[in-house]
C-alpha cells in the first residue's frame, strides 16, 4: 500500500512541476473567438478523432471525391461564410453553406499530392474561428486498401524481426485497444526473450470500411530463445484490425495467437481465433520463459486469472478389477498433462489416481473436495484455491458430478479439478469397473488464482 502511495505521488509531483511552466492546458474551450465548430468530418472520419496528418487510400474516396462536412455556430450572430484552403492558406474556396450553419465542400484530390487544409468560418460580425484547430495534412496514396494493409504488416514484421521498437510503434495507433504503452513494454520483453526472429505471413481475408481494416493472416515463424539458444517454430491463423492514420493503416487491435507482444498476451490481445490451424503455439510467461501451448490454454489463461502459467484440459481415469485378482488404475500428472498406468498400487508415479470410487492423492500430493461448482466461492471458471484444509486421504470420485477439488502438490503448486461425469459397472464375476472424466487447471508458478 505504501508503494502504491509513492507511485501516485509521482504524477502529482510532475503535475506541480509542469504547472509552473507556461502550460495553458486548462484553457480548452476558452476560445476568444465566439465562432465554433460543432462537428467536422472528412468523408466518414471525424476531425477530432484523427491526427493532424492523415493518409487515405484511393479506395476510401467517394467516387474520387473527398467531402468536408460540418456545422458551425456563432452564438447570437449567424455564419456568413465558410472558406477552405487546400494549399496552406495560399488560396481559399467557398463551401456550400445553409442557414443553420451546416456546410459542405467537395474536391477531387490528386494522387500522392499533399493537401494542407484549414477551414475558416466567418460570422456576420466578422469574427472567425481558430484556424489552427482545423489544420489537417491529407495525402491520397496510389494504393488500394489491400496494399496499404500489406505495407503496414510488412513494416511491423520487419521492425519486430529487427527488434526495432520505435519503428514498430510508429505504426501503432494511440487508441490501440490493448493500450499502446502496455504493448510497448510487451515488445521490449519479447526482444529480451527472442533472437533471430523470422516471421512469414500471407493474407487470408481482408475487409475495409469507414477507415477501419480487419485482416486475417496465416503465419509461420521461427524464433530462437535468447536464454538458451533453443529454436521454436509454429504456425497458425490470427487477426488484426487497423485504422486510418498518419502512416496509412495503424495497428488498432490484435487477437490470439499473437505474433507481436507475446510477453503480455493477456493485456495485449483482444479475443482469439479458434481454428484447426492453431494447434501448438509459442507463448511467453510472466517470467520470460518460452513454451508451446494449445489455443485452449491460451484462451483460458487470458479469460481467467490472466496468468500465463496456467495449463488446462480434460482427463478420463479408469479403474478395473482384473480377473487375475489384481487392479489396473489410471493416474494423472498435472505438470505434464499425462495419464499414467498404475498397476497393483504402484504408487508414487502420479499426482492423483482413481481407485474404485475414490480419488487418491499420490506422490506427496494432498486433496480436498470444495463442493459443487457454483456454490459459495466455488467457481471453476474464476476462483482461488485455499491454502489450508488439504488431506492425504481420498475423496469421492464417482457419483460426484460438478464437484470441484483442490489439489496441493509437494512443490507447493496447486491444481483444481472439476468432476464432469462418472460410470460404475460390476462384471459377472463381481469385479468393479469405474471411470471418471474431469476438467482441470494447473498453475506451475504456485499462484492461487485460477
Amino acid at each position, binding site marked *: 500500500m505504501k508503494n502504491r502511495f509513492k507511485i501516485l505521488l509521482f504524477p502529482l509531483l510532475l503535475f506541480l512541476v509542469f504547472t509552473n511552466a507556461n502550460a495553458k492546458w486548462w484553457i480548452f474551450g476558452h476560445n476568444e473567438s465566439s465562432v465554433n465548430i460543432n462537428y467536422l468530418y472528412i468523408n466518414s472520419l471525424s476531425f477530432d478523432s484523427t491526427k493532424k496528418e492523415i493518409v487515405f487510400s484511393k479506395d476510401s474516396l467517394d467516387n474520387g471525391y473527398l467531402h468536408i462536412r460540418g456545422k458551425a455556430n456563432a452564438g447570437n450572430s449567424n455564419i456568413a461564410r465558410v472558406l477552405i484552403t487546400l494549399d496552406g492558406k495560399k488560396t481559399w474556396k467557398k463551401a456550400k453553406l445553409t442557414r443553420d450553419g451546416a456546410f459542405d465542400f467537395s474536391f477531387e484530390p490528386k494522387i500522392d499530392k499533399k493537401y494542407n487544409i484549414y477551414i475558416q468560418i466567418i460570422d456576420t460580425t466578422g469574427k472567425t474561428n481558430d484556424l489552427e484547430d482545423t489544420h489537417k495534412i491529407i495525402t491520397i496514396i496510389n494504393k488500394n486498401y489491400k496494399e496499404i494493409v500489406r505495407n503496414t504488416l510488412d513494416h511491423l514484421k520487419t521492425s519486430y524481426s529487427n527488434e526495432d521498437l520505435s519503428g514498430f510503434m510508429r505504426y501503432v495507433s494511440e487508441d490501440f485497444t490493448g493500450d499502446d504503452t502496455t504493448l510497448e513494454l510487451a515488445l521490449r520483453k519479447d526482444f529480451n526473450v527472442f533472437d533471430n526472429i523470422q516471421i512469414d505471413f500471407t493474407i487470408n481475408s481482408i475487409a475495409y470500411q469507414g477507415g477501419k481494416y480487419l485482416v486475417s493472416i496465416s503465419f509461420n515463424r521461427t524464433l530462437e530463445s535468447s536464454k538458451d539458444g533453443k529454436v521454436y517454430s509454429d504456425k497458425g491463423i490470427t487477426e488484426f484490425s487497423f485504422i486510418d492514420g498518419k502512416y496509412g493503416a495503424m495497428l488498432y*487491435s490484435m487477437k490470439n495467437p499473437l505474433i507481436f507482444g507475446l510477453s503480455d498476451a493477456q493485456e495485449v490481445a483482444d479475443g482469439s481465433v479458434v481454428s484447426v490451424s492453431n494447434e501448438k503455439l509459442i507463448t511467453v510467461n510472466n517470467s520470460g520463459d518460452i513454451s508451446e501451448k494449445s489455443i485452449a490454454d491460451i484462451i483460458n489463461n487470458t479469460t481467467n486469472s490472466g496468468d500465463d502459467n496456467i495449463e488446462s484440459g480434460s482427463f478420463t481415469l479408469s479403474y478395473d478389477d482384473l480377473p487375475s485378482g489384481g487392479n489396473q488404475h489410471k493416474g494423472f500428472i498435472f505438470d505434464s498433462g499425462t495419464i499414467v498406468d498404475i498397476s497393483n498400487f504402484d504408487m508414487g508415479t502420479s499426482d492423483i489416481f482413481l481407485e474404485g470410487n475414490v480419488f487418491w492423492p499420490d506422490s506427496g500430493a494432498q486433496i480436498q473436495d470444495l463442493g459443487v461448482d457454483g456454490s459459495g466461492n466455488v467457481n471453476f471458471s474464476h476462483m482461488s484455491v485455499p491454502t489450508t484444509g488439504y488431506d492425504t486421504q481420498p475423496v469421492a470420485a464417482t457419483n460426484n458430478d460438478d464437484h470441484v477439488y483442490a489439489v496441493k502438490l509437494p512443490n507447493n503448486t496447486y491444481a483444481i479439478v472439476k468432476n464432469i461425469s462418472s460410470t460404475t459397472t460390476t462384471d459377472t464375476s463381481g469385479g468393479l469397473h469405474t471411470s471418471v472424466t474431469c476438467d482441470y487447471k494447473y498453475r506451475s508458478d504456485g499462484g492461487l488464482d485460477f
Partner: protein
Amino acid sequence: MKFLSFLSYRKFLFSFFVAIFPISLTLFSSDLDKVAIKNDFYLQYNDITGPGKKNSSLVDGLRYFNIFNYYKKGKLKKYKYIINLGLKATDNRKKDPKDISITNMQITLKNKINTFRVGDVFESFSQYSLNTALKGVSYRYLSKDITNQLQIVYGIAYPRWDSFWDNKTKAIKRSVYGTRYRRKILDGKMDIGVSFVYSNDKDRIFGGVPLYNNHLYTMDINYIPIPDLDIYSEFSHSNNTKNTSDTTANENFSGNAFKIRAIGNKNPSRVLVEYERVSPYYITLTGSATPDREKFKTSWRYKATKKIVTHIGFLWYRNDLDGQLIDRKDVYRPSIGITYKKAFGRRHNTIDLTYKLDITDTTNNITNHIIDFSMSDRFAKIYNTTNISYYSYKTDGNIQDSHEFRINTQFNGKIRKKDYIFKPSLYIGSRSNKDELKSSLDKYYEASIGLGVDVMKYRLSGKLKIGENKSDRDLSDDSKKVFLNLNIYYRPKIFFSFKRVMIYARAFYNDFTYTTNTKNFRERGTILGVRIRF
C-alpha cells in the same frame, strides 16, 4: 537447369494458368476503364542444408505463390456498385494450408443514403459491441444531413472464406446479428449511438475452448461540449451463456463494461484522461475488452517552446473487481520524457530522453525501470540515428533480477551521381543481458552494411545487404548468423497493354552456426516474380 528440374510438369501448367488467368479476364472485360486487375506471381527455390535443417522456417525446393485482385466499379441505375475479389494460390504449406483460397469477396451497392454490402462486411459499431469483420450482409442508412445513421449486419465471423466448406481451415462458427442507431443531438455537439449485438458459437474445434451465446446491449456517446475538448463514453451490458464441454451444463452470467475518455487538444498541450471498468463477467466476442479490469490512464504532452516538447504519462490498472482472488494485481506505469529539437544549433538534430517505471503490486512484486535515449541527426548527406536503452527487470521471490543494456547506431545515405542514386547504409548494434540470479552475462552483436542503387533512367533499383549477428551465452549454446540479401526490381516502360509491370528477383543466404554442431544449417534461396497491373 537445376532450378527448372524441380518444376514438375503439373506444377508448371498450374503456374502458367495462374499467371495467364488475369490476362484472360481483361480480354473479356467490356468496361476496361473501370476495371483494375492486379496479379503478383513468384517462384521461390530454397536449398536448405546442414544437420539442423529442421529448424529452418523455409520449405526446401521449388514453390509458387500468386496473389490476384479484381476490382470493378460501375453504375446500376441510381446506385454505384463496386466488386472486389481477391484470390491466393500457393503450394507452400507453410504459407497456407490450401492450394487456392479466396482472400476477399465483396459487392457494394450504394447511393448517398443507402449502402448495401455482401461478402466481407465490416460494420464497426463501437469498441465493446462490434469491431470485427463478418462474412455476410450489411445495410447502412445515412441521412443526407448525416444526423441519423442506421446499421444492420448479419454474418459469420470466420477468419477465412474456406472455413465455410473445408475441414483443413475449420473454425468456430460464430454467427453475429447486430444493429446500431446513431443520432446527432445538441446541434451536432453530441453523437449518441445505441446498439444490440447477438452472437452464437457452434462447431467445437478443440476441447477446453468454451462456446458462447452472447447478447450485448451498448450505448456510446461522443460529446464536444466546448471546442478542443472531446469526451467519449461507452456503456455495455452482456448476457452470456458459456458451454465448456459437450458433457457439462451451461453457465449463465452477465456483466457490464464502462469507459469514459476525455481528450483536450489545443496548442501547446494535449491532455488525455481515461477511466475504464470491465466486470469479471463481461464478455464481448465481437468487440474489444479485457474482463476483470479497472483502469485509469492519463497523459499530457506539452510543447514548452518550439524546440522542447515534454510528455508525462500514468497508467494504472487492476484485476479482482469482485474480490474473489487472493493475488490481486495492481499495475502502475508512470513515464516522463522530453524531446529537444535542433540541439547544439544543428538543424536536423533531435534528442529524446524517456524514463518509464513499470510496477506490478501482487504476491511477487515486479519493478522494472526503463530508460531510453535516442538522437538523430544529419551530417551532409548521411542520416544517423543512435539509440541507447537500459532496462532493469526485478521480480520478488528470486523469480527475475536482470539488467539489459542496448545500443545501436544506423547510418543511411542518399548520394546522387547523374542518373544513379546510391543509398549506402551501416548498422551496428549490441545488447548485453546480466542475470543476477544465475550470475550469467549474455551478449549479442549485430553488424551489417548495405548498398541500394536506383537507376531511374532504366527503371531499375536494387539493394544488397550483408551482415552478421552473434549471441554469446554464458550458460548455453552460442550462436551466429551470417546473412546476405539481394533484391532487384525492374519496371519495363511499356509491356503490352499493362498499366504497370514490375519484374523482381531476390536472392538470400543465411548461415546459422551453433556451439553444438548438429544444430547448424544453411539456407539459400532465390525468388523470381512478376507483378502486373491492368
